[in-house]
């Protein structure tokens, strides 16, 4: 991993269309501003990893009885 030191208001360019700026530093928290084309998706890593982990759990669970699931759902859906 490339490591660079930056102060508040300084930036890093990634390629020629992505700019990452240190907006503010307070204690152990850093505020980061990102300028990127709309086609680039930006997310907090823990959200991304959380979804990945949940997908893996979901893929493991699909072997279970599908008819049973449907009945469980309908039993709770009393308006149908």
């Amino acid at each position: 991993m490339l490591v660079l030191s930056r102060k508040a208001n300084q930036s890093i360019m990634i390629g020629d269309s992505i700019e990452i700026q240190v907006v503010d530093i307070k204690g152990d928290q850093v505020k980061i501003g990102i300028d990127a084309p709309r086609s680039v998706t930006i997310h907090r890593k823990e959200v991304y990893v959380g979804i990945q982990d949940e997908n893996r759990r979901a893929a493991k669970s699909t072997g279970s009885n599908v008819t049973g699931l449907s009945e469980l759902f309908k039993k709770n859906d009393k308006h149908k």
Partner: protein
Amino acid sequence: MVKIKSKALGEVEVSEKQRIHFPDGILGFEFIKHYYLLDMGDSPFYSLQAEEEDEIAFILIQPELFVSDYKLVVPRSDLEALGIKQEDDLLDFAIVTIPENPEKMTANLQGPVIINRHSRIARQVISLNEKYHTKHAVLEALRQKQGEAD
């Protein structure tokens, strides 16, 4: 029509119209680019069966069915990437996780699967609605939704 092996339903016949293209794959399963969306008869659930990977499938449900006041909020860039111009163009699903006790099944509303119903191009997106997380108790939410309807 072609016959495929599916994890949820065994051998089934599928048509081209059920074949969904995920150019970026599903998070954690990026190597799979095509799935078949299988209807499970009179059931609120669907199976998203990986093409050429019999053992990989996801159970899907439409969040509107069990979440009261469900609102899909996703980055515009995701909709543009899928060529979605209006709400009518899209199908929106949540992936369901079934634990040992299926009563405790959960749905991932933070990472919904969005499909352009015309082109059948899809993507798992990350919701911008901060109310949603990866583990919504489906039956509990359903009972709550019913309660509000009374």
